[in-house]
Structure formats: structure tokens, C-alpha cells
């Protein structure tokens, strides 16, 4: 049962696949008692990428992104994309985020997330 106030999101993260990094990424979700209905990890050039789908409330959405952003070996966090429908209905979401992943796969250096919607989850952007 999905709790009221939550929405389904797809997150994609690029990370260096060293001992425990994937577990740390997932642990940040599971420590909040959230189910993980979908996880897919695969190599992507020099790095790995993991796709995580999870139902979160607005507070958790920010918490996850911020905690991932200070996790060693996590090099990029794509913009979280809200998905309407079932856990499988993620076609649009995947193609949008994967452009970023393709850039990484080409060996371009990872960079900080752009100052966009994501930035509000981080810093320097007045939200009122």
C-alpha cells in the first residue's frame, strides 16, 4: 500500500562500483523503512549507474538526494522524475535521464548537478 502524501519517483545515480557503494546507496532508502520495488544496476563506461524506483513523500525526496550527494563514490545524481502509473511505466523517465548517463559513459568528467529543480534540494537557492 502506498502511503498518502507519497509519489512514485525514479532516481538514477552514477557511482564508482567499489565495495559497498551500491549498498550505501540503497541503505539510504531502506533506513527509512521504504520498500524497493525496482533496482537495476549496470556498468556504464568508467562508472556504474543504478536506477531506483521508490515511493517517497516530499521530505524524503529531498533527504534521499542530499544524503546520496555526500556518499563517497557517488559521482552524479540525475534529476528525480515523478512517474504516474504502475512501477513498470517508466519509459519516458528513463530516456530523459539516460542522456546524462550517456555523457558519463563517453568518459566525460562527472560534474555537479545543474542548478535546476535539483538545486533546490541542495543549496544557495531561496525557495520563498
Amino acid at each position, binding site marked *: 500500500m502506498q502511503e498518502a502524501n507519497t509519489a512514485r519517483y525514479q532516481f538514477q545515480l552514477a557511482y*564508482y562500483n*567499489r*565495495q*559497498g557503494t551500491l*549498498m*550505501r546507496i540503497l*541503505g539510504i532508502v531502506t*533506513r527509512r523503512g521504504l520498500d524497493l520495488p525496482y533496482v537495476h544496476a549496470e556498468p556504464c563506461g568508467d562508472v556504474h549507474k543504478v536506477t531506483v524506483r521508490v515511493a517517497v513523500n516530499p521530505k524524503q525526496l*529531498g*533527504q534521499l538526494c*542530499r*544524503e546520496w*550527494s*555526500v*556518499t*563517497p*563514490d*557517488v*559521482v552524479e545524481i540525475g534529476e528525480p522524475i515523478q512517474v504516474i502509473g504502475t512501477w513498470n511505466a517508466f519509459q519516458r523517465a528513463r530516456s530523459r535521464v539516460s542522456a546524462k548517463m550517456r555523457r558519463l559513459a563517453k568518459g566525460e568528467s562527472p560534474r*555537479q548537478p545543474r542548478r535546476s529543480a535539483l538545486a*533546490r*534540494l*541542495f*543549496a*544557495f*537557492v*531561496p*525557495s*520563498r
Partner: protein
Amino acid sequence: MRTGAEIVWACLRAEGVDTVFGYPGGAVIPLYDALHSSGIRHILTRHEQGAIFAAGGYARSTGKVGVAIATSGPGATNLVTGIADAKMDSVPLVCITGQVRTSLIGTDAFQETDVFGMTLPLTKWNRLVVSTEEIPEVVAEGFHIARSGRPGPVLLDFPVDLLKGKADVRIPVTHRPKLGPRWPNSAKADFPAPALRSLLLSSAKPTALVGAGVKLAGAHLALQRLLDDLQVPTGATLHGLGAVPEEKPYFLGLVGMHGSHAANVALNEADLLLVFGARLDDRVTGDPSKFAPGARIVHLEIDRSQMHRVRSYELPIVGNLADTIPQFHEAIADLRLPDWSEWKKTIAELRSGERNGSGRALPALHLFDELYALLPENAIVVVDVGQHQMWAAQRYRAHSPRGFITSGGLGAMGFALPGAIGVQLARPDARVVCISGDGGIQMNIQELATIRRYGLAIKVLILDNKFLGMVRQWQQLFYSRNYAETDLSDNPDFVTLAAAYGIRGRRIGVDPAQANGLPADTPDVLKRFLDSPDPELLVFECPREANVFPMVPSGAAISEMLLEEN
């Protein structure tokens, strides 16, 4: 060619380590075998929890990385509380554990535990070492991560065969570790000066809150200069104590659950909150949904994962406070600040009208006043967890920014005694006072043997109320006085116990005939206690049902604080 064990010690030396705290066992015998030629001092505690808390005390009092060593299995599991404590309180630690030999890993071998898996969520980073050759790189990366950004604990797990194996390696490693968390670099161009200025200009009731981050960044003097210019009402979290001297007219003392009335009112009624290196955890905010309801929040913090905990902040400023506080100051240098005198007067009146303690707690509060008045400049108090901790914090008079040390985030009873050992070894010139309750002292009392072994002149003050006092207080106030399993009236005689460890002890009680509730010779007793060159133990027989006030009941808003016993 060197053995893995010799490589570990050489790497520690290369990182500037002079002291480690540990406890041996089968999987780390090779390390201990190579200790004598390491040039590093090893402190043998009497429990691994003692070792890691001591390493924590060492790190907290100096800012250097503390090192704790334990064997596989039970040795490693005994470190876990100390690792969690270090994670919560941003303490740089490197823990070294032995592991069963590589070929046995995963077979449930004798004394095998998955300490790597167990400590994943508690460490900033950890690693099960897989070859002798990689040791220098792993140790260098571990130290780098432990000290960088927001400091924290790292665990390195060494299978015993890799400690015995040999390799030809270069130490120190010449290349910088390639990874680590992406800590912000506080670039000047990013500082949101216009937004900050407009928030200040439109504010009528600004309040500042000071947390541990200020001290960790070594930014306390820069902050004092800024606050001297701003002169806004200022409170401190438990770990922020000491960053702003008590004498500053704008300083209101501790905030939060047992904070001063004035400090909590200033937080609650502020229309602008300037938060310097504090996480705004629930002990500070009370019910987060009712916290500072009218305030816009400017939050300076190094760890972006701590942002927006309470709600979405108007101005989060992520960066090292050693950079961002001066940037803040520069941003307002030419600003004509609004007239905040009415607000400052209101809060100052509250502060001066605050009761100087009340009820059964008075003798304990006065004992702290007497103690702090006698402490030299270089004193460091290391405080355990419970009522005595809150009294110690409420009455604390800052001596130095790293002068008040306690387990704040985890609130781990048993921290103070071993913690004080680490502090005293790191700061041999300092007067170190361990303050504990009768419950907490018995969680690591075996470390009196360590004090004795190394001849440390630590002063141990026990507030003996023969209760798990803080829990009893909650039972009294919120559970109809059902004192279930908090009575410790069968405590041992601590003075006799200290004597068994070769440590002199004495006892003082209360004297109801005296205005402050303490025997007339208390100052003399305290002076002798502090001045002797030996370890000393002093038991204060605390009124049994003394309570800590003010108090914000758990889950209530800070505006709903109970000021005193009714």
C-alpha cells in the same frame, strides 16, 4: 619487503598518528607483534568500547584523527557504539579491525563477523582489505575521508593473512585518493550576499544559533567577530557550547530540550534564524513542525545532507564555515542594520529574570558553579549522559572551544570515563575532569584500570543519585512516577571500588543548612580534588529525585517548555 602489519604501522605514522587505542586478539596478533618497532604509542584499554571512546576523546579534543584497534568478531562488534557516536558527532576516527583469514571469510569461521556490512550505515566509508599491496592506498584514503568535509568514522577490516603477507610498497602514497564525497568548496562567487542582506534588512527579530560546526571548522573567533557586530540574541547547542564566551551580552546559553528560557523564546519568536553549523536536530527544535514558526532560516553548514531537516530553508549556505562566516561578515560590512534594540531588550530582560535553578537540583547546580569557578583556563570537562550532563551544560562557563566534550548525538552512556582518557593523553597539559552519573560510570568503570596503568591525573566526579536519573525524571513527569527498573540504590561503594583500582576517592553530600545546599568546605574539597597531581574520584551524593529544568517534553514545541517543578 614488509609484512602487512609493518605496512599498517608505517602508514599510520605517515598520517601523523602518535597514539592508538586498542585491545588485542587472534586476528590482530600480527599487528601487535610489529608494534614495538612502529614508533607509535599503544594504549591498552580494558574493553574495546573503552578504546574507541578514548580514541573519540582524543579526536574531539584535538581535531586529529583518532585510531582504535580491535580483533575480529566480538572485538569488532564492541566498537560499534563508538562508531555510531563518532558518526553522529562528526568525530574523525579510523577503526582498524582484524578479520579471519581470507580463505575462511564467509564460512562462519570462529570469530568471524561481517563488520564491513555491519558498519556500512554507521561509517562515512569502510573497506574490507583484499590484498597486502593495497594497504597504503586504503589507509591513505581512509584518513582522507575521515578528516575531510564533515569529519566522521572510517573502518578498515584486515584479514589476518594479509597482515602476515609481504609486499613491496611505497609509503606514503604519492597520489591523492581519487574519491571521497563531493564536499562543497565554498567558492566566494557562490555566496548569496544579496539574499542574505535583504533577509537581514527585513528582519525585526533576528536570533543566532551556534553549533559544533563552528568549532570543527576552527571558525569560533570569526563568528565572535561577526556576532560582536550583529549583537543578536544567540544560543548554543550542546556541542556549540564554548564557541561563544559566556560573558558576551548577547549570549543566552544552551537551547533546546533543557535550554534556557530566554534562548528558547529567542529561537521560537525569531523572524530570522541564523544557524551556524548546527543540524537542528529534534533535541534542539522540539516538535519540528512547530519550530520557530515565523522565522526565515539562513543555514550555514558543511554537510548538505543536513539541510532542510525542519522545513525548506530560505537560505541554505553549504560550505566550510571557516570560509562562509567571513564571507557572511564581508557581505554585511557596509550594511546599515535595522534597529533591533526592542527585540534585544525583550530577550535580555528574560535572560536576567531567569531563576538561578530551583528545587531539589539546587545543590547539584551549585556544585557545578563551584567546580567551574575553580577550573583553570586549559580545563576540559568530559561529560557522560543523563541529568548530570544537562546540569553540567546549563552551568558551563566556556574555558575553550574544545573544553566541553560529551556524546551528544548518540547520547551514549559510558562515554565520559574512556573519553577523558583519550583527552588527557592528547592534552597532557590540560586539567581533565570526567563528570558522570552513577549509571553511566558503571558502563565503562573498568577503565579506571587504564587511568591507573598510565598514571593519568584525571579527576572523576560522579553524581550519585542512585537512580538512572534522566529516565526516572521522565517516569516521574510523564509515566505517573512508575519508576520501573531505574532504581540503583544497590550501587557499589564507589570510593572503595576506586581504592581497588589504586585511585583515591572521597564523598561529599548535601547540607540543607547551607544556602546553596552544599557543605561549607565544598570549595576546599573541590580545590584539593582538582589540584592533586594524581587521579582522584569524588562522589557527590545527589538528592535522589532532583530534576532538570527547564524542560521541553519530548515531542512538544519549544514554546511549551516547563520552567520548573510544580
